């Protein structure tokens, strides 16, 4: 990096960095710290009065069975969204990486969902899984003779938001896994082919370990997606219902902060979510360090 640094100026680099500094300080660092501070207060309607209450908000949250339930929901939701969207993404990428005629077209037809938004995915799933006019229940009814009520059964409602979140996110994983597959050293795969390894062995013994840096990167990105960007699915599909069964942390923060105006409480919930994600990221780095194969 230093060999590139050909220029020297006392002020120009700081001028170039000034907009980045100003925005990151004002709109990321300051609000993050302010969230920590607010979490120690009880805030009256519209922030007109603030009263310092120490860790009372946290204590209240951790003794509230509803909150613990929401915490559990978030773990279940994140686990399935991350696992399914990565597994499906990897499977599709391996398919898209086969050298058959028309592979360019296939590839585009598999990565386009990158552009999908949670809200678009949300309303489309809302319609497809509509108990009366939805196509899913029509197919289930015609083939299996069941027409489940997706929005009133807690397990089914959770499955519904997981499906929608996975569908929206698969494209992202396919984009990155294809890039990873293309950077694999062809010589190793050829050698394995000559040694008579079956496709199954080639995948688990060679391709998968060589992809591990990408898997590791995607694991972190998908976790963040499941925790933060899943809000529209809940807001559009289930509103957290039935009976809090699909309420997840980010939805509850919104609700407490902007529907019930419990600012301090919402801030405390944000801090807990923040710590949970930082903790998970560090854990993944720890585990990753020992297992990830970075090549030479």
């Amino acid at each position: 990096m230093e060999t590139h640094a050909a220029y020297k100026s006392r002020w120009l680099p700081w001028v170039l960095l000034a907009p980045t500094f100003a925005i990151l300080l004002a709109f990321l660092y300051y609000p993050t710290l302010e969230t920590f501070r607010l979490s120690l207060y009880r805030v009256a309607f519209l922030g007109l009065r603030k009263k310092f209450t120490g860790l009372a908000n946290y204590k209240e949250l951790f003794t509230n069975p509803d909150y613990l339930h929401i915490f559990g929901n978030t773990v279940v939701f994140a686990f399935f969204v991350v696992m399914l969207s990565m597994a499906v993404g990897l499977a599709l990428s391996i398919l898209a990486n086969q050298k058959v005629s028309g592979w360019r077209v296939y590839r585009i037809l598999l990565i386009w969902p990158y552009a999908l938004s949670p809200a678009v995915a949300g309303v489309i799933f809302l319609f497809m899984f509509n108990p009366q006019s939805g196509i899913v229940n029509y197919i289930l009814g015609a083939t299996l003779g069941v027409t489940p009520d997706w929005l009133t059964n807690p397990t089914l409602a959770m499955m519904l938001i997981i499906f929608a979140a996975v569908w929206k996110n698969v494209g992202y994983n396919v984009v990155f896994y294809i890039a990873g597959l293309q950077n694999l050293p062809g010589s190793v795969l050829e050698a394995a082919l000559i040694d008579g390894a079956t496709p199954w062995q080639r995948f688990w013994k060679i391709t998968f370990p060589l992809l591990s840096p990408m898997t590791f990167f995607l694991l972190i990105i998908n976790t963040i997606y499941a925790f933060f960007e899943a809000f529209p699915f809940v807001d559009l599909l289930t509103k957290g219902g039935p009976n809090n069964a699909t309420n997840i942390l980010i939805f509850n923060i919104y609700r407490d902060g902007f529907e019930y105006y419990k600012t301090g409480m919402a801030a405390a919930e944000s801090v807990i979510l923040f710590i949970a994600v930082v903790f998970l990221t560090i854990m993944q780095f720890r585990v990753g360090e020992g297992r990830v194969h970075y090549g030479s």
Partner: protein
Amino acid sequence: MSKKRNTLLVHAMLIFAVAVVAAPIILAFIFSTQTPAQIFSYPPKFTIGSAFLDNYRTAWNQYHLGIYMRNSLYIAVAVTVGKTIISFMAALALVYFRFPLKGAVFTFILLTLMMPTEIMIVALFELVTKIGWSNSYAALIVPFLASATGTFLFRQQFLQIPTSLVDAAKIDGAGPLRFAWSILLPMSLNVVAAMAVIQFVYMWNQYLWPLIVIRENTRQVVQVGLKGLTSGQDATNWGIVMAGAIIALLPALVVFLLLQEQFSRGFALSQEK
């Protein structure tokens, strides 16, 4: 023989995968052309219905999707352009200048990767309210004008460019800004395209923050606007909702498809060491 059969099998699996991935959008499009009676018919019709233009027109005019689209476009373009310029400048300073505390500056920028906006919505909302930005586009644009991702992508690209170029530019008497404009920028167009795709799609798809900040319906963005289609007073007309979903999807999809080749290349570069 078995090779040919294998190729056929791969084609079959690919076609199946493509169909499964696209099925919700294809269905959404088909139903977006149908009248309520056609949608509720049993068994469902999988053909283009008779309300194609009506549904799109109603979504666009009566449900204000046209206005929402304009708002979203304005915000997404502003952030995409602004963030690309600001990230380019920051990376220029980080790679091509010698200055004290450079490592600390880089860490300061990278640490923000751990601070997604969603984590601070309560405090950020108080902040934008305090400075008089509630219900304004400024609140949807300014906080997103700088990012670690953008700076990092440009930095990785600059590090790939041989140092001989900057040395030659210096010998020719080109200052840093001249060098950036006439050599760095043309050599970084793949990263500019990758940035354009990532930022445009990201901003276009935002939902939670506009939902909180924007109180006035005519200023709302299209993703939140979609919500208005499903919760009307009358029974939901799903044909119009699906028309809205297709409309809301198109701009991000078009940007992605137009730039996807450069996008992949921009990433391939940034991943090499």
